[in-house]
């Protein structure tokens, strides 16, 4: 009985800390419509700053706490709101997710760079002192946390209900445009929300650090608990968020107490918040289609069939030549790059064409690899089955959230990734804890491809085939509908398209492609383990895909090579290990608003060369009647990149921006006039 009580106290303590973190998340989301994936990462960095102040520089704990909560965190929040997330709320969900995932990865890199891995600890406030109620010992630290969460709840209530700026905040929850109409200042509201939100993340991080340790990842991933709690309040209601956080804290505490600590179910304890998140997302009510999404997403040019075939053949030839000259370890790296490129192709379909975000694409690759190893039929049929299984799993992940849109789909992939990471991949029927599984190489027509170089060549052929297939899909009816769904779900719905099943099919197809890549990867490595498909690796994958260009297959190819080089760089220059994440993370923050990425620059360069050089070349050539241009240099069907203007003046996308301003002032005038 006494153990039940003490676990309850522990649960209330963790719940209180989650509640503090979650209320910050709700505050920023509801006022700026940006779901801050990096909320936990801010908490983590602030906990490190607190450690730096209190332990390294020996500033008294209370002063350190005050400095972090009242100075550093709010300033960081203001800075991020001003320079990173401003205007992001009006962007497509995929863009705001990518930018905040960029912050997430960048902050982890930054922390690793400033505070390299070492043993650090932060003591509890009041040095473990406490008091006993009967047989239950309660530390003052726990009491303080519970007290502070109550203070946060009361403070937010007073702020939102009793102050002018709080009223403006609540107004912007319901309708930011209306707030503008009535003379509110969304800018001030957003800045305040981000300052307070970051401060709350910091408080939660600092309070939890003595319990879970000062770790880059553990503290950052705590945010999933905050997501789960915030989701119960549908990212709006603070009371429900607090209720969710408390429930979660207590459930988790009981799980530690009463669930088995060994065997396949031992992972259960770690995934309680994730299961909670899943359950809450599934129970969310039907999302309504939003009208007035941002238009004019620029698409990468779509090359002609002949051209994509020629380029594809050229890539295969290039890799064939390359594998002849590579050492066996470099061949492995080339195969890894091909794997990553294929997984990125699956993101081109999902994110580039479809506008959805998956935060766990490597997990689907892992499902494919696991299926390949388990099936143990190393031929094309086995490969097909592995992809099919991964695809079915992908569809299953999308299925429960059929009724929901963007953000919730992305979060359910995250929850799925954690589940697979902690519960499935490490189980004894899969790779096992710290274990690995043997995998066979693919055999074609009864001939096993044992040579590494040849295997990599086959992987390249698969990559090219997938890329060409993807382009073919994009050219056809399904591709058009995908783009239409991305550009305007509201129009698709009112034209009679049932988007639910399309979304499921899209997720399934994308996961299947990733699964195929995973299966081929397993064959390449011949032995695979859970660490090959860690959830966290999916985030740099997404970011590099976006930076390199997630709207084109070219971007996927470049991105695959980049991602392969990342660990190579990190092992060659261990002191810069964190810096790589910083560059990728903040690179995505800077470039995330244009999903065409680096590949687009390449296309622009190509066109420039073609426009300048090709005429010069043809001019000097002796006049041959009707010489056909080589297919390689032909312009794509949608050769124009960017909004090109019509002679009739500004286009409607430009005008939309102006119109909202005009309508705003007009509506005020209209209301004023008719109110009398």
């Amino acid at each position, binding site marked *: 009985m006494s153990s039940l009580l003490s676990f309850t106290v522990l649960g209330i303590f963790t719940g209180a800390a989650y509640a503090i973190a979650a209320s910050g998340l709700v505050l920023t989301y509801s006022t700026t419509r940006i779901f801050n994936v990096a909320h936990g990462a801010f908490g983590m960095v602030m906990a490190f700053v607190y450690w730096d102040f209190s332990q390294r520089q020996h500033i008294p704990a209370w002063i350190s706490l005050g400095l972090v909560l009242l100075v550093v965190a709010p300033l960081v929040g203001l800075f991020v709101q001003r320079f990173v997330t401003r205007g992001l709320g009006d962007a497509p969900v995929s863009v705001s997710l990518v930018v905040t995932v960029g912050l997430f990865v960048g902050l982890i890199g930054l922390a690793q760079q400033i505070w390299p891995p070492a043993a650090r600890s932060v003591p509890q406030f009041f040095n473990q002192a406490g008091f006993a109620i009967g047989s239950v010992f309660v530390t003052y630290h726990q009491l303080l946390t519970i007290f502070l969460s109550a203070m946060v709840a009361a403070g937010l209530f007073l702020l939102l209900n009793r102050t002018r700026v709080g009223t403006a905040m609540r107004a912007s929850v319901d309708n930011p445009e209306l707030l503008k109409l009535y003379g509110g200042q969304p800018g001030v509201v957003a800045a305040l929300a981000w300052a307070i939100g970051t401060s709350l993340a910091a408080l939660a991080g600092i309070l939890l650090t003595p319990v879970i340790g000062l770790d880059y990842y553990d503290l950052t991933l705590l945010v999933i608990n905050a997501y789960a709690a915030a989701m119960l309040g549908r990212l709006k209601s603070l009371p429900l968020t607090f209720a969710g956080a408390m429930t979660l804290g207590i459930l988790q505490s009981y799980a530690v107490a009463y669930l088995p600590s060994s065997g396949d179910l031992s992972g259960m304890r770690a995934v309680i918040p994730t299961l909670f998140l899943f359950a809450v997302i599934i129970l969310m009510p039907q999302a309504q289609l939003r009208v007035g999404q941002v*238009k004019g997403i620029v698409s990468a040019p779509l090359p002609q069939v002949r051209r994509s075939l020629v380029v594809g053949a050229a890539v295969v030839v290039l890799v064939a030549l390359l594998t002849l000259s590579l050492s066996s370890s470099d061949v492995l790296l080339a195969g890894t790059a091909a794997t990553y490129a294929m997984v990125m192709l699956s993101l081109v379909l999902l994110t580039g064409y479809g506008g959805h975000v998956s935060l766990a694409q490597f997990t689907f690759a892992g499902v494919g690899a696991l299926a390949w190893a388990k099936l143990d039929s190393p031929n094309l049929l086995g490969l097909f089955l592995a992809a099919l299984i991964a695809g079915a799993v992908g569809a299953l992940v999308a299925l429960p959230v059929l009724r929901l849109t963007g953000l919730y789909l992305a979060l359910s992939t995250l929850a799925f990734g954690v589940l697979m990471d902690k519960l499935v991949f490490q189980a004894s029927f899969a790779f096992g804890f710290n274990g690995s599984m043997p995998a066979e190489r693919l055999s074609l027509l009864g001939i096993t491809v044992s040579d590494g170089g040849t295997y990599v060549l086959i992987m390249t052929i698969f990559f090219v085939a997938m890329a060409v297939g993807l382009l073919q899909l994009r050219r056809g009816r399904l591709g058009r509908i995908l783009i239409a769904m991305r550009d305007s779900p509201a129009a698709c719905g009112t034209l009679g398209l049932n988007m639910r099943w399309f979304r499921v099919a899209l997720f399934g197809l994308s996961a299947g492609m990733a699964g195929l890549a995973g299966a081929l990867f397993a064959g390449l490595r011949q032995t695979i383990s859970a660490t090959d498909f860690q959830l966290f690796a999916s985030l740099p994958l997404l970011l590099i895909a976006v930076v390199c260009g997630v709207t084109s297959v070219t971007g996927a190819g470049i991105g695959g090579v980049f991602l392969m080089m990342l660990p190579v760089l990190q092992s060659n220059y261990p002191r810069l290990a964190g810096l790589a994440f910083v560059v990728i993370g903040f690179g995505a923050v800077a470039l995330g608003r244009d999903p065409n990425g680096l590949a687009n620059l390449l296309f622009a360069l190509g066109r420039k060369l073609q426009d300048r050089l090709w005429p010069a070349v043809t001019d000097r050539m002796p006049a041959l009647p009707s010489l056909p241009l080589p297919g390689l240099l032909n312009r794509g069907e949608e050769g124009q990149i960017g909004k090109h203007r019509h002679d009739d003046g500004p286009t409607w996308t430009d005008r939309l921006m102006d119109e*909202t301003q005009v309508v705003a002032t007009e509506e005020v005038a209209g209301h004023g006039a008719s109110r009398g």
Partner: protein
Amino acid sequence: MALLEVDDVVVQFGGVTAVNEARFALDAGRVTGLIGPNGAGKTTCFNVITGLQKPTSGHVRYEGKDITSMQPHRRAKRGMARTFQRLEAFGSLTVRDNVRVALDIHYGLRGLLQRTPTSSVDSLLERVGIAEYAAERADSIPTGTARLLELARALAGEPKLLLLDEPSSGLDESETDDFGDLLRELAAEGRAVLMVEHDMDLVMTVCDEIHVLDFGHIIASGTPAEIRANRRVQEAYLGQADEEDHPSAVDETTVLDPVTTEIPAVR
């Protein structure tokens, strides 16, 4: 029986009532106008009818069936189509592909087996008069053209009920005349057309019936002539004569004949 009945629909956003007990009906073969100052709840009405907004209370009936909680795509399958005030063209597709997608969606799985005839795409573009833009990206065409594109796209589903949200803004005078003729034609083919529009010339010449919304209330319904003469409508648009925002300098002829003037709330 009316094709569409809007029955005491109320929509509240937080504390603001956007639509307040709106009630009207639409018949096949007629063009109905829905007018009112900005913020009166016209677009919200459209969203309720097409299923993009769930009403706080009230009902929408279509062909006698209560469709209040039906998904938007199911309503479209039953013959409802709309255009948007804030344009929702598929910006990264060409004008032709915009219409092609609409046809693909309309024909659904049947369409996967047979090619969508290019002729039907082109004839739709010609019908609304934007065939010359067929190969351009939809985010590069002028506003008026994009509105006509949305109309072409809506017509691809062979709708029985057509809802047009400010279709003529961005069109010049002669284009607006052509557009008015097209609307009459579409109604004559047996469609019910509901139009939110600020161009009073167009509304008064084309509509068979007009409903006037103000603060979510329908304050007047009737033929163009009746609406023109209605005192409350004039007040809603111009404010009451003794109001400080609109001192007595307001020209008396303006008040009596809103048809010949631009409604001040619009431009």
